[in-house]
């Protein structure tokens, strides 16, 4: 029996239940239990399609068409889901150490997990839109729970623009539906490949790209995402950035499946590459200017999102694999960095001008964070190195060496601000009194455990990248189209 829908249904139902146990002594234990259940979920489904309502495929004049909603699971989706659930589970475990934990927090995290899993799994464009919107609401809700005025403000802005972007995406879905008569991505792709493109399809495509930019945090919507990551509690930002990265990957794959082998994609590719390059450069330049560690990490997320989008926008098999691999790696090391930022914030403040000398107080955390920073910069033997190398290879394969130079410069920029942050937080000399003050703060073992786990995963993926890559290559070959710039 295929239990695939449970990946979405279990978190969704539990989200509803948790929202009712608002303030209860059982919230902590139930949240811990839920964190364990999440880790099993990705392995429940079997590879292949799952037809909701058992409608299956109908033949109309000999053409197979999917009727009803279709979910599919393949090795790529499984690894994405596992990463998502792992980080979700760690965030839930960490949340039990927070004061005033309410069921609403767990409920929102679960809602986000369910919706992003559905966005990854679904092969139906409208279903994707529905869960995309739910993910937006869940993200705004998680930021609101930070409880500060700035958090309210950024969540409000995110929702204002989100309603607009959501409407545009829905109109795009509607236009594609009216042009092709189906909502299934596979059927739609086949129809578009066989029939001449009309202005309606172009309109739909443009609107899909707007939706992608909003959901994935690409320009011109990147500042909204930066606000979200910087204003939420840092360990919550870990799951927020995972949501947006995976929505970005899922939507990019949809665009590739629909338009990847059409002549129009040559133009779209230019637009998408331009967007990702702007994200990379803008994120790095802005991160260099930041005094607040959380903001620095937020801008770093945007610049790394540019890498992911660049790989997928290339559309070559290797590019797709590199982009997705970088997305997974980024989700891991960035979560580690955000959890580290949470510990720093707890000890003193995330403002880098106010902290210093933490190396003596929390040496383990300092070294784990240094390793996570190495991973994010792309220093071997960590996973960031493997995916950036693969990405550079893919870009060279498409004969655009200029982009590799740009990637290197961006990596150097990353090195600069990451090391600046490390110096300011851990190495900058500080007085004896301040040190005594720091020593009173207790860091929970959960924080160190989750940070350590993520760093170990970064190391394992850096040494044995084939664990993930072997699962990605077949999908890359299936979706990607080889091309070389002349």
């Amino acid at each position, binding site marked *: 029996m295929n239990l695939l829908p449970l990946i979405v249904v279990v978190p969704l139902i539990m989200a509803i239940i948790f929202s009712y146990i608002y303030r209860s002594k059982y919230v902590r234990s139930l949240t811990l239990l839920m964190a364990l259940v999440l880790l099993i979920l990705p392995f429940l489904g079997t590879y292949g399609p799952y037809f909701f309502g058992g409608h299956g495929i109908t033949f109309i004049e000999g053409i197979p068409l999917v009727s009803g909603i279709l979910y599919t699971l393949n090795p790529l989706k499984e690894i994405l889901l596992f990463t998502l659930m792992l980080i979700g589970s760690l965030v839930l475990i960490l949340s039990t150490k927070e004061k005033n934990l309410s069921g609403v927090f767990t409920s929102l995290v679960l809602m986000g997990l369910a919706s992003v899993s559905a966005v990854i799994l679904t092969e139906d464009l*409208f279903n994707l839109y*529905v869960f995309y*919107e*739910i993910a*937006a*609401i869940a993200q*705004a*809700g998680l930021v*609101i729970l930070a409880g500060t*005025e*700035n958090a*309210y*403000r950024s*969540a*409000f*802005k995110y*929702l*204002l623009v*989100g*309603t*607009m972007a*959501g*409407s545009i995406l*829905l*109109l795009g*879905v*509607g236009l594609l*539906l*009216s042009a092709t008569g189906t*909502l299934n991505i596979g059927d739609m792709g086949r129809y578009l490949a066989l029939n001449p493109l009309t202005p309606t399809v172009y309109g739909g495509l443009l609107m899909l790209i707007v939706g992608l930019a909003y959901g994935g945090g690409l320009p011109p919507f990147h500042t909204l995402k930066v606000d979200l990551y910087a204003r939420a509690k840092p360990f919550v930002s870990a799951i927020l950035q995972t949501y947006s990265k995976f929505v970005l990957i899922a939507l990019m794959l949809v665009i590739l499946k629909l338009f990847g082998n059409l002549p129009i994609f040559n133009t779209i590719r230019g637009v998408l590459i331009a967007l990702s390059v702007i994200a990379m450069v803008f994120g790095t330049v802005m991160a260099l200017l930041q005094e607040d560690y959380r903001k620095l990490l937020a801008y770093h997320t945007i610049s790394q999102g540019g890498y992911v989008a660049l790989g997928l926008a290339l559309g070559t098999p290797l590019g797709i694999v590199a982009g997705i691999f970088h997305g997974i790696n980024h989700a891991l090391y960035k979560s580690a960095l955000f959890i580290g930022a949470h510990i720093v914030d707890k000890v003193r403040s995330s403002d880098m001008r106010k902290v210093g000398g933490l190396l003596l107080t929390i040496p383990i955390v300092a070294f784990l964070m240094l390793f996570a920073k190495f991973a994010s910069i792309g220093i071997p033997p960590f996973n960031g190195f493997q995916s950036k190398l693969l990405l550079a290879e893919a870009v060279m394969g498409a004969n655009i060496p200029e982009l590799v130079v740009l990637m290197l410069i961006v990596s150097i920029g990353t090195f600069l601000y990451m090391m600046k942050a490390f110096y300011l937080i851990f190495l900058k000399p500080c007085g004896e009194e301040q040190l005594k003050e720091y020593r009173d703060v207790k860091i929970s073992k959960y924080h160190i455990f989750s940070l350590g786990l993520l760093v170990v995963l970064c190391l394992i993926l850096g040494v044995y990248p084939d664990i993930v890559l072997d699962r990605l290559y077949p999908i890359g070959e299936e979706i990607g189209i080889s091309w070389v710039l002349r």
Partner: protein
Amino acid sequence: MDLQLASFITAGALVVLGLYGFFFVDNVIKKIIALSIISNSVNLTLVAMGYKEGGYVPIYIPTVEFQIFSKEMAYPLPQALVLTNIVIGASMLAVMLALSIVFYKKYKTLKTSVILKED
């Protein structure tokens, strides 16, 4: 005038109206209203797409032969989409309105230029 064309024109007018409200009106509630107008214009567009001149309502009618019914009925899928979208729109609206209540309590005004100004 053709009903479908009229719907599309109305939807276009609503989008323009909504965009004007979203960008140029300095009031949080009015901005939210403008957004909901945009969202409803998209719904109208979707419903109009499924419209068929003189078509049957897409509910199976036993007296009509199935072959004719399947050819002559209006396209039901957009209606299902719109129904779902209304629910999503309502929940988005609820969160935004709740936040505007919080802002109003804090600032005693609904002006966007005051509320959304960074420190």
